[in-house]
């Protein structure tokens, strides 16, 4: 059971802005092979990709300090999507999702959660916290193409 591909178009529109044809995606996963795979899958769907190996590094990249204060020259305005693994040491994908949704500058950026485990309560929890979509690993090209077209369908 995959999470619905719902989520408000208006929030997507605010972030999509003028990314041209190459949305910038931040992919977070502690597994090296999975990082390489998700990067290729996204690049094949014409996305620009930055990877991070854990939640803390992801937050740093996004300019969200651990203390909650935002840096001035953040990468925020350039980020169109964040896709993160759920099971990560230290900060889980869910915790990362929460931090992003709590941030005044990042909360509009769609967040997709990936997991190798199909646990309905986990999926519900993430969707209720504001995740755009929940995707089951291992990811296939068709999953990412669909994600990409969902992003596109929210643009005028």
């Amino acid at each position, binding site marked *: 059971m995959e999470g619905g591909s719902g989520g408000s178009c208006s929030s997507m529109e605010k972030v999509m802005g003028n990314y041209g044809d190459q949305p910038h995606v931040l992919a977070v996963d*502690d*597994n*090296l*092979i*999975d990082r*390489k*795979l998700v990067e*290729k*899958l996204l690049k*094949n769907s014409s996305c620009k990709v930055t990877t991070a190996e854990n939640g803390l590094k992801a937050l740093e990249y996004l300019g969200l300090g651990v203390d909650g204060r935002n840096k001035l020259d953040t990468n925020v305005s350039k980020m169109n999507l964040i896709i993160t693994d759920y*099971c990560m*040491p230290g900060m889980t994908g869910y915790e990362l999702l929460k931090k992003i949704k709590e941030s005044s500058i990042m909360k509009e950026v769609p967040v997709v959660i990936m997991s*190798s485990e199909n646990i309905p309560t986990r999926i519900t929890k993430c969707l209720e916290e504001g995740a755009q979509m929940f995707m089951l*690993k*291992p990811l*296939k*090209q068709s999953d990412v193409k669909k994600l990409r077209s969902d992003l596109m369908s929210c643009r005028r």
Partner: protein
Amino acid sequence: MDVGQMQRTWVEYTKSLFREGFLDAQFTQLQLLQDESNPDFVVEVVSLFFEDSERLLNDLARALDQQIVDFKRVDAHVHQLKGSSSSIGAQRVKNACIAFRNFCEEQNSEACLKCLHQVQQEYYLVKNKLETLIRLEQQIVAAGGSIPIEELSF
């Protein structure tokens, strides 16, 4: 061997790997991701898998060798290995990891050790198969041919 023969050999060999359960559909996904912009993608991912798995297997052996086994740590390593093997389509390794995690939960050292041996065995088997497959692919490409991935839909 001419290119056609090499290609047929590749197809037969790959099909047998699927039939015997060494590889699953996710491996085909990997093959499909390879393109002109990234002609060595499969080799790169598989090489990463080898490095990462061998490191994890060493960590697992060490963790299980401790006086007091930290099962959370063991489970974390197995979880990683299960993830990577699943992502590249190394089905038997993945399944061995699933069984392993059950014994981690039970905190059963002896069973865990048996599982580790099982995972090691499956890993070295699939490593050998993948190296053979890649060698075949490189021979085909060197002879000017292409990998007939489309022949895999069965």
